């Protein structure tokens, strides 16, 4: 007799081929070259990073073709301290995942804040990108290993309140 069957594994999955489209491709090619490239809405002039392939969600018009280089420094607009261990975690908690408003961009991008104790991270803190060695670069924002404090004075809340 075999053991009674109580539980079965039922993995599911789908295999996609994903195509970036022209604007995201410019963004990804920029990352390969060590640049942070966004696109600007021709109507409201907001800069999206990463750029959207479609339209500016506020204006409903196609983003411009020209690349707009943003960063590499930016401002922490909001953040969370990760205290919970989970499967596949690469960094020992506690650490900080933050939304960073890169200089020149009008929308925050999420990344890691390292090089500072988690309880010292704050809204308005200035941070800069720490890139991996260029031999490891590919078409991914993981080319930036993390962000670290620049030591500049904090940004006033009113200066980024519109991007929260």
């Amino acid at each position, binding site marked *: 007799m075999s053991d*009674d*069957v109580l539980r*079965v*594994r039922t*993995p599911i*999955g789908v295999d996609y081929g*994903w195509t970036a489209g*022209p604007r995201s491709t410019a963004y990804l090619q920029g990352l390969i070259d060590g640049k942070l490239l966004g696109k600007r809405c021709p109507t409201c002039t907001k800069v999206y990073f990463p750029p959207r392939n479609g339209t500016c969600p506020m204006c409903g018009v196609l983003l411009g073709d020209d690349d707009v280089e943003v960063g590499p420094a930016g401002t922490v607009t909001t953040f969370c301290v990760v205290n919970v261990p989970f499967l596949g975690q690469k960094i020992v908690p506690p650490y900080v995942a933050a939304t960073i408003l890169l200089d020149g961009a009008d929308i925050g991008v999420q990344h890691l804040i390292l090089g500072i104790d988690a309880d010292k991270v704050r809204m308005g803190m200035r941070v800069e990108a720490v890139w991996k060695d260029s031999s490891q670069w*590919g078409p991914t924002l993981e080319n930036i290993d993390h962000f670290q404090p620049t030591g500049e004075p904090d940004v006033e809340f009113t200066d980024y309140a519109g991007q929260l």
Partner: protein
Amino acid sequence: MTDASDTDPGYALAPDGSFTAPLTLAYPYSRTVGPTYGRFLTGLAEGRFVATVGSDGRVFVPPAEFDPTTGQALDQWVDIAAEGTVESWSWQPEPSDAQPLDHPFAWVLVRLDGADTALLHVCDVPDPGAMETGMRVRARFVDGADPGMGALECFEPIGDDAGNDGGDRS
């Protein structure tokens, strides 16, 4: 890192110049099966079929947990043969990864001897010419399979081993 990953960047260019890359979205679910399917799957792991009997005497395989007529929980079980008759079938010329066999096969509705319902599974034959409604088939089980339907690999024609009808599964 392997040699392959050193040369393969993991992406390519589409005809319009866009980056393109494979993207796999998958979840490693598992689930409990409950007492009725648990007993059925335990039977499969032992190379046999068990079925539930309804209030009207109908024999259900896969087992019904509740009587389709009265709604009452069913707790009468019978053993069922591992052979049966093909009630209907459809050819699968290009199997996908998740399907039971890795080569072309037939989907079959098999009514096992002693059952009053048909079981959807697959039949291992080399070509659709070997399939016929009403043909006799038997189950082929997998020893040591993970718990679940994978213990039942497929059905195969009875008498095929004699070599007629292109029954080459070597």
